[in-house]
Structures are given as structure tokens and as C-alpha cells.
């Protein structure tokens, strides 16, 4: 789950990290009222789940209330990499002497936590990594050991931060690690971490991705789940507990298992079609799940045909077949369906489907043939 910047800062603040006072707002009037309460100058910052906000004109300095009104009006509704700005973060402006970068994430190769610290902050870390890799000080933290102060201090020294920034940075990095581990984050990133002219180290931006699998032990994470960017189709699928990703094409895809669903999307593309979605109905393919999946796909106006690709492992073919037929009785499906059913008891399942086959429900022997048929019907 990706957090908005302001949610990330609230998350960091819970762990005692210094962030600027601010308010999340949804209209120009709210933005102005927030700026009046905070006192100008303020920053007006677009809250979107994508990078490159500054370049797109989504982050502006406002010296006075008139400027807040102007910038808020311009930024709300702005399209940044396909994300429409609907919320703004109004934050007390900070004076900046220097900009650094700090983050923790899981290094899947090393199977340890990777901390990165650089005195070249404020730009994309990928750019720094390419142009000046020596400017990034990295440490790998064994989760069993954790990150103690001594190691943190050596790490900060390796990053060559100026003396004035050392104490504040050590303190923030230790808290950042605690937020990362206790908060079950996939990523915590501060860019920039700033040194103010007064010598304070301060968190000026926050990028946080939380592990959805940890929601059971963080009751407050439901609020973040609600603000995930989902289109209408994804929202409907999410409400039904389906693993759905919206795509741009016209062939609706239903498969069991994430790997097979991904593979189905691939095969549809390979035979010249274009999938409308990725949808994994999981191991069991009972009538309820199948009906829900068909409903979500049926409501997508772009869908012209539906490809159901099931490999019965433990799930038996006849259960799948009965599920499909029952689901079709419950939901009126507009587009023709092509089924490929293989694996456990596939013959029994095909026998159940056979008398129901017509120009709205077709069956093919293999994944490739079914994909070709579905693509042909969609064009």
C-alpha cells in the first residue's frame, strides 16, 4: 500500500521524527483556510501516488494567501503521470541549507534490510546511483540484529555528512528504521532530508509503502487501504476480495492462480489480442467466486470477449464447470465466453459444459487455442 506524502509524514511523526506542521485539504477554500491557520509562507503540494510532482508543477511555494489560492486552484485537477490531483498538503515552508537522501527497503538478493544514505538529496536516487554511485552510503542490516547507534554513526560518517548534520541524522535514521520494521513497511524514503540554516535536521518529504500482509496487526492501516488509487473496476473487484488489475484491452481474463493469470495475459497479447484485466480467482473456483469475477468483468464496457483459463489442481474440473454454469445463471453476461479447462477431472468438467455450449459459451482444448478464439471474438 502506497501512502500519500502527508500520510507518510503522519506515520513518521508517530515514531518521533521531525516533520513540518501541515494539513490535508481537498479544495481551494480548504487550502486557504489551512494556510491561514498555519501562517504563510507555506508549500502547496499535490498528493498523488506517483513521482515527478515538482517537474509537473505539483509543488509550489506560496509567500502569501493569494499565492496559496492561485497555486491550489492550478494544482487541484492537474494530471500528473495519469494521476489526477484531488488532495493537497499545505505545509509550513522550511528554509533549506542542504538536502540529503535516506531510505530503508528489503534487499531481496541479500535477504537483509538495505539502508541508503546520501548527501546528494533532492534528486532521484536512481540518477545519483548512475552518475555518482560513491555518493550513496549503503548498509545491510540483519533483521535479527537490528540497527544500533554505533552502526548508524559509522554509516553517517561513511556518507560524509557535515558535522552539523550528524547528530540529527543519526537520531532520524534510528527512528526511521524503527518505523520501517515496527510499521511493516516495504519502503520508507526521505528525499529530501534537510539541514536547515539553524542546524536542524528535518524530514521534508515522505515516501512510504506498507506491506498489505501486515494489516492484521495494524488496525489503523485500513485508512490507507481506502486511499489506494483504484479505477472503478478495481474498486468493484477489491470489494469482492478479488485479485484484479485493470488493463487497457478488450479481452476479459479470469484464471486461477497469479502465475497462470499472468501467463494468460501474456498469451492473449502474444496471439495479437489485448487483455482488459488480470484477475486471479485463487485456488478454489466455486460459483460465488466465479459469479463475482464474471460480474466485475461484465461491467467493464471495454470487454468484448471473456477468456476463462482454469487449471484444476486440487480444484476439480466438475466443480469449476458447475461454478461457471451457476454463475452464468446468476449474472447476465453480455460478451461471449471461451473456456479452457485442464487438469484434475477436466473430462468430467468438459462433459458438464458440453450441453451448454453455444455462440455465447465456447470451449477450447488448449490455452493457446482458447486465447486465439477469445481474441478473434473481441476484434
Amino acid at each position, binding site marked *: 500500500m502506497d501512502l500519500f506524502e502527508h500520510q507518510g509524514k503522519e506515520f513518521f511523526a508517530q515514531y518521533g521524527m521531525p516533520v513540518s506542521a501541515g494539513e490535508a485539504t481537498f479544495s481551494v477554500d480548504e487550502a486557504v483556510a489551512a494556510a491561514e491557520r498555519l501562517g504563510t509562507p507555506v508549500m502547496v503540494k499535490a498528493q498523488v501516488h506517483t513521482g515527478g510532482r515538482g517537474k509537473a508543477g505539483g509543488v509550489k511555494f506560496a509567500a502569501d494567501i493569494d499565492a496559496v489560492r492561485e497555486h491550489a486552484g492550478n494544482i487541484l485537477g492537474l494530471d500528473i503521470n495519469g494521476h489526477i490531483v484531488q488532495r493537497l498538503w499545505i505545509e509550513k515552508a522550511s528554509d533549506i541549507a542542504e538536502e540529503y537522501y535516506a531510505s530503508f527497503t*528489503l534487499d531481496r*538478493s541479500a535477504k537483509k534490510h538495505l539502508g541508503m544514505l546520501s548527501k546528494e538529496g533532492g534528486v532521484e536516487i536512481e540518477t545519483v546511483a548512475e552518475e555518482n554511485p560513491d555518493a550513496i552510503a549503503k548498509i545491510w542490516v540483519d533483521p535479527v540484529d537490528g540497527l544500533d547507534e554505533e552502526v548508524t554513526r559509522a554509516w553517517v560518517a561513511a556518507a560524509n555528512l557535515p558535522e552539523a548534520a550528524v547528530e540529527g541524522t543519526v537520531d532520524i535514521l534510528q527512528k526511521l528504521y524503527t518505523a520501517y520494521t515496527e510499521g511493516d513497511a516495504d519502503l520508507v524514503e526521505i528525499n529530501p532530508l534537510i539541514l536547515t540554516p539553524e542546524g536542524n535536521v528535518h524530514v521534508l518529504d515522505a515516501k512510504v509503502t506498507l506491506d498489505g500482509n501486515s494489516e492484521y496487526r495494524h488496525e489503523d492501516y485500513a485508512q490507507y487501504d481506502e486511499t489506494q488509487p483504484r479505477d472503478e473496476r478495481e474498486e468493484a473487484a477489491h470489494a469482492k476480495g478479488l485479485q484484479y*488489475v485493470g488493463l487497457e484491452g478488450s479481452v476479459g481474463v479470469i484464471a486461477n*492462480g497469479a*502465475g497462470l493469470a499472468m501467463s494468460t*495475459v*501474456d498469451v492473449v497479447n502474444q496471439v495479437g489480442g489485448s487483455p482488459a484485466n488480470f484477475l486471479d480467482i485463487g485456488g478454489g473456483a466455486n460459483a460465488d467466486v466465479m459469479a463475482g469475477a464474471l460480474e466485475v468483468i461484465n461491467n467493464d464496457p471495454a470487454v468484448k470477449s471473456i477468456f476463462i483459463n482454469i487449471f484444476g489442481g486440487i480444484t476439480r474440473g466438475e466443480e469449476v464447470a458447475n461454478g461457471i454454469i451457476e454463475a452464468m445463471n446468476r449474472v447476465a453476461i453480455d460478451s461471449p465466453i471461451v473456456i479452457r479447462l485442464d487438469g484434475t477431472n477436466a473430462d468430467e468438467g468438459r462433459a458438464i459444459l458440453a450441453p451448454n455450449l453455444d455462440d455465447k459459451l465456447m470451449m477450447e482444448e488448449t490455452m493457446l487455442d482458447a486465447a486465439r478464439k477469445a481474441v478473434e471474438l473481441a476484434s
Partner: protein
Amino acid sequence: MSIFVDENTKVIYQGLTGSQGSYYGRLNAEYGTQVVAGTHPKKAGSDVDGVPIYANVGDAVAATGATASCIFIPAPGVRGAVMEAAEGGVEFIVAITEGVPAHDEAFFYNDLKRSFPKVRLLGPNCPGIISPGKCNIGITAGHIAKEGGPVGIVSRSGTLTYQALYELKQKDIGVTTCVGIGGDPVPGTSFIDCLEAFEADPDTKAVMMIGEIGGSAEEEAADFIKNHMTKPVASYIAGVTAPPGKKMGHAGAIVSGGKGTAAAKMEALEDAGVKVGQNPTEAGELMAEIVANL
């Protein structure tokens, strides 16, 4: 021969008293797996289908001589269950459970490496392991696999593991062992662990490897194949056309920041001499060609 498990493997099921555990425990036993015990802290002395329940893995090992454990308990308890299994004395732990937080996985992976370096963990979030005709631990339907050899399978995805077994069975090709390593960010057993074991197994003559987008495990495997493997490998990578930034079901399956793409993985594998299919069927055909020329 087979790798990791065979007909002599005695297995404890942590969570045998639950609905998933009892269902798959029964299926595994029917397949011929030595299902010797279950565990539950409050149900010691009872049984499930005649399989005795002990309070913990240590007691179950002492009573049965089990060497493996299969975990079917809900995600919040997996970290404790993995360490209980290692402390209890088993050598091989299969964690089927999905939805385990990544920080838990990173923690017990490193804790095991340090405190129990000889213990192998498979999973979490995996379909398990099957040495056809000998032992089936997990949720794979046993009858879709043909016994014998000469092919070993290692896969990151559940249903594509079944697809791979099935493609080979359709072509009358047997499998020594099929290992589902799971799609999570910190799998206990890696592609390389399995490739190494298959390379050492005299009955495995060729390996089928099913990968997917995200991370760099396939690239690392390609490097290993190039430098350390003499046996031929066929492969398929799922998610060739997955859009960047969209998580495709598995926690690990995401293309982000231009990394983890299928194209890069396929290129690395081809560079290592691996035959890479564009879809599971093609990968199966490539493997059939390899087997025909062995």
C-alpha cells in the same frame, strides 16, 4: 532419486487439526506420504484420521522420528511455527501459508541461517514439494505428475507449477522432484538451492524452471546455470506483458523502476544457454526436445 524429500521422509503437519491442514494432510497421506504426526498446543493426545497430535514439534519428533514439517497455520503464527519446527529438530520445513508479512519472512530466514544452518525452509506462500510416487508435501494434486525422471522442476508460481507438471505428463515425461519455491519476497529456498540439488542428483538429467516478473532471482539463477550447471534447462517467465508498477497477485510479482522485467530475465537465461519458451506449452515442448536428445 529425488531431492529434499523421498519415500523415507516422515512429516509432521503443524495445523493438521485445521480445515486446510486436515484436508491436504489427508490427501498427502493418501498419496503415500508418511504423515506421522500433527501438532496443536491444546490437543495433544487426540488424533486426526488416526494421525496422532502432539503439543509441539519437539514432542512429535521425539515420538515419531519425523524429519520434516509442513505448516498450514494462519499467517500471524507462521514466524513462531517456523522457529518451533527448527527448535523441535526437523531438517526440512515447508510453509504453505500465504499472506505472511515480509518482515517476518526476513527475520526467520536470517534467524534460521544463524541458529539452524542445516535446516531448509521451503516457502512461505508455496504449493510445496512433490517427489512423484514417493512423497507429496503440500497442495499439489499428486496425479498430475508422472513418476520417475528425468526432469526436475523448480517454480515460483503455484498454478504454473501444476501446468508444468501436466505439460510433461501429457508428453509422458517423468519428474524426479518438483519444488514450488513460492512467490514471496524472501523465499526460504531459492532457485539456486534447487538447481544445485538437481545438478547433484544423478537421476535428474534436465531441469525446468518457471519464473515470474519481480526481483532478480531469475537473473541470479541464470548466472548459476552459466557457471555451475552441466544439465540442460528449459524455462518460462510469466508476466512478459505485465505493466510496470502493478502488482500481479504475488507480493513479489511487480516490475518497478525498470527492474524485474520478464525481458531482462529471459535474456539472462538465454545467455546462460537456457531454452526459454514464450508460454508454458512452448516451454514444455522445449523440454520434450531436450529429453528426446538426452
